[in-house]
């Protein structure tokens, strides 16, 4: 494990970069996914169609294709940002389709009477969603949302392969190809970095699930 121990500072900064990338993608995909889910149950037919088309296309597209678009397609159109940004956008788009579907199953689990009662006191559609339906939908959607986001954490390594730069994946690549360390210890170090993130997320998820269960 010498390559890891000798390069702890490099691993640490890679860990922080990966974590930053993941946090942005998490927040972004939750927001976008919630918006698309609201589209999918909206009273406006055009929004419903857009929502379901979005989910169908994005969910059935391999992540690597989405990332290729970001990395090579957009610059061709003259849109240039760092791949750190492009990677987040790609991962947010991809993950939001899954967030949307997880949330929609949660929305369907909220009894119809809840939204009716909300409308009956004069709340608009968006107020009904925000105040009554979504808070309850999130509760029953915590477990599937958790799996979606943990899958996203791991997918962030795929974005890393496209060259986010400075993240755990690129630390692994630098140490093996540029400096010639052996793969097994270096990648073990990378894996540990990801495990720290996913396992803490799993633990946090368990806490959230318990909290939500009590508040019911």
């Amino acid at each position: 494990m010498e390559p890891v121990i000798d390069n702890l500072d490099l691993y640490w900064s890679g860990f922080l970069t990966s974590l930053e990338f993941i946090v942005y993608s998490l927040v972004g995909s939750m927001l976008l996914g919630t918006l698309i889910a609201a589209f999918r149950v909206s009273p406006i037919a055009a929004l419903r169609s857009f929502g379901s088309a979005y989910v169908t296309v994005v969910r059935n597209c391999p992540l690597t294709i989405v990332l290729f678009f970001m990395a090579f397609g957009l610059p061709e159109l003259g849109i240039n940002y760092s791949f750190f940004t492009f990677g987040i956008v790609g991962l947010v788009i991809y993950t939001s389709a899954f967030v949307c579907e997880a949330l929609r199953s949660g929305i369907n689990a909220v009894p119809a009477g809840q939204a009716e009662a909300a409308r009956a006191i004069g709340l608009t559609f968006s107020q009904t969603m925000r105040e009554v339906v979504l808070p309850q939908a999130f509760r029953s959607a915590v477990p599937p949302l958790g799996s979606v986001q943990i899958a996203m954490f791991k997918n962030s390594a795929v974005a890393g392969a496209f060259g986010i730069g400075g993240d755990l994946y690129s630390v692994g690549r630098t140490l093996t190809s540029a400096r010639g360390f052996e793969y097994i210890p270096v990648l073990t170090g990378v894996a540990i970095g990801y495990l720290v993130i996913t396992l803490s997320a799993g633990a946090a998820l368990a806490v959230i699930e318990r909290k939500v269960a009590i508040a019911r």
Partner: protein
Amino acid sequence: MTQSDSGVSAANGAPLVVLEHVDKWFGDLHVLQDINLSVARGEVVVVIGPSGSGKSTLCRTINRLETIDKGTITLDGQPLPQEGKELARLRAEVGMVFQSFNLFAHKTILENVTLGPIKVRGQKKAEAEKRGLELLDRVGIAHQSAKYPAQLSGGQQQRVAIARALAMDPKVMLFDEPTSALDPEMIKEVLDVMVDLARQGMTMVVVTHEMGFARTAADRVVFMADGAIVEEGTPEEFFTNPRSERAQDFLGKILKH
């Protein structure tokens, strides 16, 4: 603004809720058939009839939870708006109490009662809470205001639902079988609150089979069968001397039990 127009048509003698030639279909089912009904200010109308006759649907068209296919419905002289903000504003004027209470499961009792006033009426939280507690006190639930709906009995939940509707200062209250989901010992506590409301002059449309309530509080009984209004009259007339065969048949059945 057309405020002055509506002011004239909504002068005190004019009816508050008017349904004219209302028809509605669910696919092939003609669920409301040429319904004509007008409810005066302060009037309490009880709607009674066999299950599946369209009572809930009728009730729900009045705040447009169900749309209609033909005819017109006006509230306080104004036709019901189509969709969007206008409709939301109208719904705030019409209180609705459901058979299954439908209290917001993730909010406390007090939050259930203050949500509408804060979000729809733009009241300050403190102001809404003060009024909310008064209303909860009026229905006898003030000491439970920090609990969640699931911690209350059915009768208590239904009284909270009434307070939630009252918090919007509605012009009319709709009740769709408010006691049908309750255990017998809880029915009275809910009916008492409703009788009180009726005494204080609230305009009410109540779908119920509680004859005691109809006799004490109703000004008029409307009997529905197969999507149509078959007969109407005072509670006394209707219960002691129903004219139509359908009503005689129906009363025969419910009186036997």
